Structures are given as structure tokens and as C-alpha cells.
């Protein structure tokens, strides 16, 4: 079937070039950021392209690690990753499992009630007032409680649970197993792929989330990593660094770029793992709700 005309070759050539360019646009910034973060002051301040630092130095990183809120930021982000993901999975399983059982009543209405939360949102101000009334403002719980209720994830898990053969559940029931036991012993062990997928969605959400911090938390000690990064990178709050005692302080650019590297590190480390499960996960997620 390979009748290759010159137009055909040209088209494929153009595609290769375009895709190549796209890759460069993503990969180059990464090299640049890494390079500047290790550069000495003079070099980092130079404009234009950066490939390999001529005099690599760890000054920026040393400075960054003395930044007062980096560690608490890491801690708070870790808190929301662990507790938040656990809570999300618990709520998602507890909502999806009863809905997946044939004999559970009012399924249609209950699913519609979930769907509605996906297409209508109270808005920023009512959400803020709610957190205020619940006394969640300026607490770490505001990071993990609201995000545990995610209708889309419930629907994804629901459709996975439905694909588990009924006979397995029925057999266990005849053996006298109660619902909780069936969930723990039969349904959950068979659902590892979807649990991993939703768990990873949740983990990535929590690593990168900062809106809830911006809206609800003003106490710096409770800021998550991304909010600290935002202050350094975007709001240019570099005052804490000027207290550094070294003779030639690192360039602001180096400080910012080392912040980028340090804060993106968890994702970069997880990346190969994420790739393996996420592609499959999007496919699980594409089933109709």
C-alpha cells in the first residue's frame, strides 16, 4: 500500500518538523531553568539562551533552603497529598459502591444529584462564606475536605464497579457476607487499577493546588508549597533572601529558577510512574457518566 508520492513525503516531513519544534518548546525551558538555577550571579543575569552554566554553583539552592517558609510549605503540601488523597478515595468509594449495587434504591435521583454538582457551582463568594461559617478559614483542613467531594471521580469509579461481574458479589452474599465485607474482600481488590488512577489524579491535584490557599488561608505558616512559590516567582517577594550574608548574593533569577526546580521535583520524580497509569486512566475516565 505504500505508493509514496512527493506530496506525501513532504506532508510527513512537515509533520516531523512541527512535532520536533513542539518538543523543543517544551524541553528547552527545562534546560534553561536548570542552567540558570546553577549559574553564578553574572551569568544568570545575562539575557538570551542558557545551556550549561560555566561556573556551576549551589548558592541559589543554599539560599532557598534557608527561606523560612519552604519547609513548612513542603510539609503542608505533603499533608494535603496524603490526607487529601486518602479522603478523596474514601469518599469516592463510599459513594460509588452503593450506587453500583442493583438493589440500592433511588439510584437515578442520587446520581442526578451528583451530576448537578458538576455543572453548577455556587461561586467564589458563597464558597468563601461557607468556609467561614464552618470555621475552616486558616486551617489545613480547608485543603482536603472540600476537594474530597468530586462527582466526576465518583462516576468513573462507579462505571468501573459496574464492570465487576455480578456473580462474584452474589456468590459472596449467598455465603453470608455482608455489604462491607463484600466491598473489602471482593470489590476493592478487583478495583486496584481505578483506585490507583483516581489516587494519582488526586495526588497531582494536591501537589499543584493553590487556589484554596489563595482564597481561604492567610497564615503564612499554613501556606502550601505552590503558594510560597507564587510569592517568590510571581509576586517577587524576595525580601527574605536579601538577609543572606554571602558577599555576592545569587541573582534573583537563580533564586526563582531554583524555586521552580525544587517545587517541581515531586512531580518530576513521580513522572515515569504517572505516565504508566495516567494514559490508561484517561481511558477509564472517558466512559460515559
Amino acid at each position, binding site marked *: 500500500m505504500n505508493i509514496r508520492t512527493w506530496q506525501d513525503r513532504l506532508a510527513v516531513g512537515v509533520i516531523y518538523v512541527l512535532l520536533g519544534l513542539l518538543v523543543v518548546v517544551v524541553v528547552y525551558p527545562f534546560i534553561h531553568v536548570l542552567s540558570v538555577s546553577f549559574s553564578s550571579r553574572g551569568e544568570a543575569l545575562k539575557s538570551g539562551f542558557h545551556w550549561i552554566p560555566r561556573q556551576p554553583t549551589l548558592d541559589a539552592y543554599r539560599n532557598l533552603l534557608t527561606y523560612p517558609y519552604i519547609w513548612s510549605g513542603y510539609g503542608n503540601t505533603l499533608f494535603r497529598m496524603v490526607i487529601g488523597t486518602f479522603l478523596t478515595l474514601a469518599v469516592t468509594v463510599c*459513594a460509588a459502591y452503593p450506587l453500583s*449495587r442493583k438493589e440500592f434504591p433511588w439510584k437515578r435521583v*442520587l446520581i442526578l444529584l451528583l*451530576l448537578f454538582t458538576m455543572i453548577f457551582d*455556587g461561586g467564589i463568594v458563597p464558597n468563601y462564606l461557607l468556609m467561614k461559617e464552618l470555621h475552616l478559614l486558616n486551617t489545613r483542613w480547608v485543603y482536603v475536605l472540600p476537594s474530597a*467531594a468530586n462527582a466526576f471521580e465518583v462516576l468513573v469509579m462507579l462505571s468501573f464497579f459496574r464492570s465487576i461481574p455480578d456473580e462474584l458479589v452474589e456468590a459472596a452474599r449467598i455465603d453470608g457476607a455482608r455489604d462491607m465485607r463484600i466491598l473489602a474482600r471482593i470489590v476493592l481488590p478487583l478495583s486496584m487499577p481505578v483506585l490507583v488512577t483516581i489516587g494519582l489524579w488526586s495526588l497531582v491535584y494536591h501537589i499543584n493546588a493553590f487556589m484554596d490557599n489563595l482564597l481561604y488561608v492567610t497564615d503564612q505558616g499554613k501556606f502550601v508549597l505552590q503558594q510560597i512559590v507564587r510569592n517568590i516567582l510571581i509576586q517577587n517577594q524576595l525580601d527574605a533572601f536579601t538577609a543572606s550574608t554571602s558577599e555576592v548574593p545569587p541573582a534573583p533569577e537563580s533564586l526563582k529558577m531554583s524555586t521552580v526546580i525544587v517545587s517541581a521535583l515531586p512531580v518530576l520524580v513521580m513522572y515515569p510512574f504517572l505516565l504508566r497509569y495516567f494514559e490508561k486512566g484517561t481511558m477509564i475516565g*472517558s466512559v460515559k457518566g
Partner: protein
Amino acid sequence: MKMLLKHRELFALYLFAFAFFIVFKYGPIYGVLIAFKDFRVIDGIWGSPWVGFKHFEELFQNADFYRLLKNTLLLNLYMLIFAFPAPIVLALMLNEIRSRFFQRFVQMTMYLPHFVSWVIMSGLVIYFLSPTTGVIAEIFGWFGAKPIFFLGQKEYFRPVVVASAILKDIGWSSIIYFAALSGISPELHESATIDGASRWQRILRINIPSIMPTVAIMFILNLGSFLSANFEQVINLINPVTYETGDVIDTYVYRVGLQQFQYSYTAAIGLFKSLVGLVLILGANFTVRRLSRGENGLW
């Protein structure tokens, strides 16, 4: 009652989960009431006096509102025109590549920005677009062009937002289209080739029609977050110079509502936005169902 007892374990599980939805998803909907009241913190949501549609009338007379509405609609329209088809084009291009290695390599690289937060992404956009030290300014220099301060000029705000949004999610969003393309039977292509169809014709007549159902679903899902999209991005890229074109409903509500405490007034804008969003998604779903005779659509 008997049913409750029989399924008490299932009900207990469901109640635990549903409580989260009641409190955190339906709770704010109760708070929407303040859009029809003059909210005072001491009186609480229920105790504050009713004022009917006062805030909405104020809203529709305020020039700010039309600016926000225009910015929000335009930005989202550009997103729909440019950012929505981008991953489809990427998937179609990847599908023409024979080398599995190159295909995987491009995919794995293009997924990466999706996992980086908007804080970092925006910070890098600002840094690379800087007119003094940025790489883009350097490239402009090669062609003898003067550097442009992209984020300091209101005309460039929307293009920068759309372009960076494309870059962040083009790879990730292409997964689903790529999978749909891989599902097309190779026999279809073979027989078309024998009939003398060119590559371009095969893309146009086989590939694109085959992925249309997926495109329709993604389109509706996209409309679901139509007016709320890009908040995380805009709030990081915007600065007072670009308020005129960049300020969207959400950024305004955040600034004026939460930072200047005009709760009721901005709750009214928020409600307006949510209602428009609701109408849009229901309308889109209805239209897609009609067009595909009930086969596509979310529900």
C-alpha cells in the same frame, strides 16, 4: 423502613460520602442567597435583609460588568477556537508518524507541562517573555525586531493566555483523540489507498469522521467549565496594566469581593456566571444529542 434496615450498611457508606457533597457542593448554593440580600457579617446569611434584585440591577448598570463579560466571553471563545482543536490536530499528526519511537517520545514530552502547576507555568511564561532578559526577546532580536513587552500590553494578554494554555495541555488532551484514532480499522485505510485516496483525503474522510463522537463529548465537557476556565492561569499572569483586557469575572470577584468585602454584589456576578454556564452546557448537550440523533451527548 424495611429497605433502610436491609441495606443499612450501604446506606451508612453512602451517607458518609454524600455528606461531603451536601456540605461542600450544595452548601455554597445556599450561600448564593446573599446575592439577593445585603450581606452583613454579624447577621449571617439568613439574618441579612432581603433586597430582591438590587444587586443585579446595579450590575447591569455598571460599565465594569460589561467589560468583565466581554473579557470572559472573548477569552473563552478564543480558547474554544484555538485551544480546543489543538490537541485534535496534534493527535492527527502523531497518527501519521510511522516511527513508534518518535511517536512515544513526542507524547511523553508533551505530557509533562500538564503536571506542572499554573504557578510555575505562569512564572516561566513571565520570565521567558520578559522584554529585557527573556529568550523570546532574544529571538526577536535575530530578526532585527524590537522586543515586545507581551504581559505589559493589554493587546497581547489574551493571545499569551491562549498560547500558554495550548502549550500546557495540548499533549495531555490529545491522548483521548489518539486512542480513538488507533481504534480505526486499518482495513478502512487500505481499501481507501487502493481506491487511490491520498493521505490528505484519508485524514479528511476517515480519521476525522471517526473521532467526531469523541470530539463531541469533549466539547460538552469543555463547555461545562466554559466560563470558569483559566482562573488559575489568569490570576497569575494578570497585572494592573492588563486589567482592561485580562480581567475576567472570577478574578474580579476575587479582588473586589474577597479583598474589598463587597460580598453580595460579587455573589450576584458569580451567580450570573454560574447560570450562564449551566444554560450553555445543557444547551450544548441538547444540540449534540439532536445532531447525532441521541447517540452522543453526556446524558
